[in-house]
């Protein structure tokens, strides 16, 4: 998929771990890992809303589009 997830960078900037974010937005670590590694097929607006709120960012800061990434 050409959509890339930049959750790692944002977490690093905020000095927050994936586990901590998972607890704050009430989502399982397994599901958040799926999102972080780009294996998710879709993301709910509610999840995106919670992540943006906790990381104080815009959706575009977490998600990006790259033509270099091959479709899976």
């Amino acid at each position: 998929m050409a959509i890339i997830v930049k959750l790692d960078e944002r977490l690093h900037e905020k000095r927050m771990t994936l586990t901590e974010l998972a607890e704050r937005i009430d989502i399982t670590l397994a599901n958040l890992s799926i999102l972080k590694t780009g294996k998710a097929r879709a993301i709910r607006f509610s999840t995106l809303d919670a992540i943006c709120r906790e990381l104080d960012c815009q959706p575009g800061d977490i998600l990006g589009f790259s033509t270099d990434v091959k479709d899976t």
Partner: protein
Amino acid sequence: MSDSMDEDRREHDPLLTLVWWVLTALMVLCLFLAVFGLGAYPIILANKAYFVAGFARSGIAESALPWIGVLGVLLAISMALTYLFLRNLRRMIDSVSHGRPFDRINAERLRQMAWLSIAIQVVALPMTRLIIWFDAMPQKPNVHHNSDGVSMGSILLTLVLFVLARVFRTGAQMQEELEGTV
């Protein structure tokens, strides 16, 4: 958490549990009848004099004996097909108990069940013809049969199964998409 939910589903659905046991009983009956169908003719041959006399009293001619063997084989085939049909249905109930009814394998099971129901009806045709023929032996009182082994209900069942197979396949695709949603 999902494991405990599965347990709950299994324990609190008495209908599924009841149907599961009924299907199991029917499967055992099918196996018994299949063995009976295959074993009947050799037993008749082994005790030919006894059975010929018995059949004569029932108005069935001795020349019809080999056809009883054919009927037995057809019965065995029909019961084997019915067994497979019931086994698929029982496995679908198991999948509901495990919390994954909309699985691609269930769509495939339904498709197989549709073909099996066609096969059962095809086998039922010569079986019914043979039974009518036995009943219509000259010595017997004339019995009228309207059935030819295929009923409207059977045809409808086949159509419903084919439609359900497609519904389940689409359901499985939707479930897979849902599982990939975070």
